[in-house]
């Protein structure tokens, strides 16, 4: 932890300050709700980043864990009358169990095969939710899901609850990355063969990453269900999974901060487009999907490592240049003397 705060002190400080003051900079229920949605997506994106960036796997089914989490908490609270807090704990456990079972079955798969397996899983879950009508309400969904009783459940308290969880998830993941486990993950990402020969149990690590990501997505899903008050199977499909993937790729797969920044970039662009659409009449509806697609293509073409690692390396280069220039000056000065 000490090492962590030292290394990430500045970034963490900026993040915390921005996160805390945001609702007061934009003292408007609408922007708070936008902040809440971005926070919910960030939790899923950080989880996905662990799978993609660290373990080098592609998951196209993240929205299904999100959906399982959402429905778990919704069903427990509305049908069995449990408190949302119990529901939320269950919404972390149940998707993790699903991720474990799925992960066990496909842990040997690599690259495209894992992508295919998670893609199929995503469809299975969405169809399952739709057809299991007595429990999930089928295609017409569920209504009147209770709110989380966190300081009265106002927009502002929900904002802090959700960003509090984002912070926990972020710290956990950063910490993980700089531990032995994180190093093992990165070794797997670079070369599975090399990692195996170094005595890393590749299967186990991949499975763990997958389970943790499922758990994060589940927590976010549970919060989403209570925040929205209604659920239907629509948001838990392929489209949403790809959106999560885009966030991680834009921000930079190998960086936990990247997942957060990627989510923010996507969120800001959506909101920017909404604002622009009030001035430019044509900018409406699915325009954001086109823009995201375009950005994804550009990122993959020109900046495959993603925003955050690129910016970091540029920053470091600039620092090195400065240092070199300083050194040169010193040498010159010495020579002059």
């Amino acid at each position, binding site marked *: 932890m000490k090492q962590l705060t030292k290394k990430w002190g500045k970034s963490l400080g900026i993040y915390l300050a921005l996160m805390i003051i945001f609702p007061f900079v934009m003292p*408007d*229920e*609408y922007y708070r*709700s*936008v902040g809440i*949605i971005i926070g919910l997506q960030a939790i899923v994106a950080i989880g996905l980043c662990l799978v993609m960036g660290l373990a080098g796997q592609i998951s196209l089914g993240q929205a299904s864990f999100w959906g399982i989490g959402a429905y778990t908490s919704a069903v427990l609270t509305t049908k069995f009358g449990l408190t949302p807090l119990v529901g939320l704990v269950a919404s972390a456990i149940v998707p993790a169990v699903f991720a474990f079972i799925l992960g066990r079955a496909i842990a040997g798969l690599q690259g495209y095969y894992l992508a295919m397996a998670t893609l199929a899983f995503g469809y299975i879950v969405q169809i399952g939710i739709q057809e299991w009508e007595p429990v999930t309400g*089928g*295609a*017409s*969904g569920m*209504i*009147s899901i209770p709110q989380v009783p966190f300081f009265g459940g106002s*927009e502002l308290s929900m904002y802090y609850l959700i960003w509090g969880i984002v912070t926990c998830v972020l710290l956990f993941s950063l910490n993980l990355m700089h531990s032995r486990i994180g190093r093992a993950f990165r070794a797997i990402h670079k070369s599975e063969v090399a990692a195996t020969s170094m005595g890393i149990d590749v299967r186990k690590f991949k499975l763990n990453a997958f389970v943790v990501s499922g758990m994060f997505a589940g927590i976010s899903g549970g919060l989403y269900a209570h925040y*929205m*008050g*209604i659920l*239907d199977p*629509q*948001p838990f499909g392929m489209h949403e999974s790809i959106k999560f993937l885009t966030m991680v790729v834009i921000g930079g797969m190998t960086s936990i901060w990247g997942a957060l920044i990627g989510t923010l970039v996507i969120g800001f662009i959506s909101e*920017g487009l909404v604002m*622009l659409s*009030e001035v*430019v*009449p*044509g*900018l*409406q*509806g*699915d*325009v954001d999907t*086109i*823009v995201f697609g*375009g*950005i994804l293509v*550009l990122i993959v073409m020109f*900046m495959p490592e993603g*925003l955050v690692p*690129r*910016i970091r390396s*540029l*920053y470091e280069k*600039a620092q090195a240049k400065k240092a070199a220039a300083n050194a040169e000056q010193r040498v010159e000065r010495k020579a002059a003397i």
Partner: protein
Amino acid sequence: MKKNQSRKWLFPIALASMVLLSACGGGAKPAAEAGAAGGKEPIKLGAVFSLTGPNSPLGVPEKQAVEMLVKEINGAGGVDGRPVEVVFEDDKSDNTEAVKAVKKLVSKEKVVALLGSSGSGPSLGMAEFSQAEKIPLISMAAADQMTNPVRAGIFKTPHTDVHGTKRIYKYLKEKGITKIALLNDSNPYGSGWTQQLQKYAPEYGITIVAEEKYGTKDPSMSSQLTKIKGTDAQALIVAGTNPGPATIVKEAKQLNLSIPIISSHGSANSKFLELVGDAGEGVLMVAGKLLVSDQIAADDPQAAIVKKFVDGYKAAYNVEPDGFAGYGYDGLNLMVEGLKQAGGDASKLNEVLEKVKYVGVTGEFVFSAEDHNGLTEDSMIMVEVKDGKFQILK
């Protein structure tokens, strides 16, 4: 350095997308203009419709009808001397977007009442919020769940599958038909119909002898039809949205299935006639009166308003209005009727709307504390396809 980097990328992207989109954009205006009844502070209403995404064929006509009506109301002096202003939002046919949109309308635009949305999911999301905030909502979503069970301040305008079912059964009873077969889509629309058809069959002395379903994207339903042909069903009921019902009608003809086919209002539109061609002759349908607006009897209580609506809509947009446009039109009219009775005081709307009686284009609405849809099966009619046109059955 950071700034330069992101600016370098974002600017060309933003520019390119703007150029692209302004080139292909439609002409949607952010808010309807306040008309002749200016001067006083307008009554601000919010409307969320699915203007893009899969529900856009519903949302666009709904918005157009509301825009047209706003002009008309303000031209006639507004409500209580105040003009009506409607702020539109697009939910992109997405639940989360609908909830965000409704929060924006209430917190930023300070609207006093809400209309929308087009689809069931977004509407249910809006209802959760507007119920908590005690802001009245009139929805254009078909789902029975919207108003069943009844919730304070939540109303809806469209017909439901309950009305359609009862209207068809009434017709069958008149014709002395007691044994029917069902062939419904497996999507929410079709399965909703199946449930209601099963539920009300005993009440009308009807036995369902065969119950088949098909997938929305199935290219052929001949195996189901062959099975139905083997039963002693006297009529076939089909509930689905295009193109399914048209395929069924065509294949039934090829298989020489001679029993009458009755299709639901989900397929009662010109697209069906186009798809089905000559095979459609004699097919029966249950629909809203708007489908045959030129054939409504002069003594029908709805005749006047339907004519006014159809003429106005045609003049404004140069197309025939469909049922969805009617739902939007009735929604705003009901809201305005409520506002008039409340003397322009929106805080009383929740209670006042429960007493509103209004003849609309969809049907005669009679809201009450127990019924927040207010329609009966008599607002629907049976039509027959004759010479490639819909013909009202007397």
